[in-house]
């Protein structure tokens, strides 16, 4: 009888421990990016956190796409030097999309809820949803968009995210990509109030090899993201694709 009781107890404990899922770390709340300039930490960032994000890698583009990419970068440099900048998507009040949204020029917020992590970027009120513990779709089953389709899972303390379905016009620093692009992220705390997102871009059509961008954020415990509505966009793209501005009071209140 005694032996049977011990056996039952052992089974109950084992089942209980097995069913006990490890709680993911708390990353909910507002964060501000530090270490701009392609991942190089600012002196300020190092002083505050004692953490230095790694330098982001540069993409190596296949020869077939090299000319388009380099010509585009040169055209942007030349246009800026002439004081007639080429209009970006921002001129049309369009958000970054992925992966630049995670670059968080403005504060970013993570919200953890059952089955989903939601990311909000203040500028342009951008939102992406990471569905947890679900299989990824096939690329051909995802309509291309700004944020694509993201699935994720917690591996220990790291949120592993896979994103597909980014439309061709949404580019990381003007880098071309194909519909086969896949964005893989490792989001993890490196200190209680310091979060890193290691973003690896894979695209066997355009890139010689995957490359990784490092985004680092520090917690903003007292901050609530502000609203952001493009209410009076005086800048516009002219017929030549150049950024212009309407001069004069537009009458907005």
């Amino acid at each position, binding site marked *: 009888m005694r032996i049977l009781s011990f056996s039952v107890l052992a089974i109950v404990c084992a089942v209980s421990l097995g069913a006990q899922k490890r709680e993911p770390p708390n990353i909910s709340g507002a964060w501000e990016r530090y270490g701009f300039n392609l991942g190089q930490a600012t002196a300020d960032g190092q002083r505050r956190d004692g953490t230095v994000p790694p330098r982001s890698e540069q993409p190596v583009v296949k020869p077939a796409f090299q000319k388009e990419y380099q010509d585009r970068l040169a055209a942007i440099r030349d246009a800026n030097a002439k*004081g007639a900048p080429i209009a970006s998507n921002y001129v049309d009040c369009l958000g970054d999309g992925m992966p630049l949204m995670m670059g968080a020029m403005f504060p970013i917020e993570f919200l953890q809820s059952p089955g989903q992590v939601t990311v909000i970027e203040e500028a342009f009120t951008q939102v992406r949803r990471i569905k947890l513990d679900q299989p990824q779709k096939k690329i051909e089953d995802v309509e291309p968009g700004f944020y694509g389709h993201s699935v994720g899972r917690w591996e220990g303390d790291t949120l592993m995210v896979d994103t597909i379905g980014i439309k061709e016009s949404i580019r990381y620093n003007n880098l071309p990509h194909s519909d086969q692009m896949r964005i893989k992220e490792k989001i993890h705390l490196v200190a209680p109030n310091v979060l890193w997102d290691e973003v690896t871009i894979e695209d066997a059509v355009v890139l010689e090899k995957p490359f990784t961008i490092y985004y680092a954020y520090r917690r903003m415990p007292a901050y609530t993201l502000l609203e952001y509505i493009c209410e009076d966009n005086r800048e516009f793209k002219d017929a030549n694709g150049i950024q212009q501005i309407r001069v004069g009071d537009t009458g907005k209140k």
Partner: protein
Amino acid sequence: MRVLLITAALLAPAAPALAHHSFAMYDHTRTVTLKGEVTKFQWTNPHGYLEIDVKQRDGSTKHYSLEMTSINMMMRLGWRSNMIKAGDLVVATVSPLLTGEPAGLLLDVTLPDGRKLEPGVPAVGTFKRTPPEE
């Protein structure tokens, strides 16, 4: 005169060195100093605007539209929508629009009470400041 310089370092998290919109269309080689009367302080995104009337030497008035940064950035630097009102006499340091139109990028503005505010233009150090004309 009370002078309060609001900077990113004092009041807010470090402002990003990057910008959504290019400011390449403004003259980085000189500034102009405009003394004028505010007709409107427009609290909008993607950018705020300060509209001012500037009296000319011949007695006429010229209207200038001065672009600022996102009001979200400005709020994080301590700005509020009621800090400037129509009728206020202000002194604005401006990077003029290269086209010569009466518009510019506002680098800083001094209010009637002497407070000097900066809207947090990214890479503001790349704009060469020139002394005000007498």
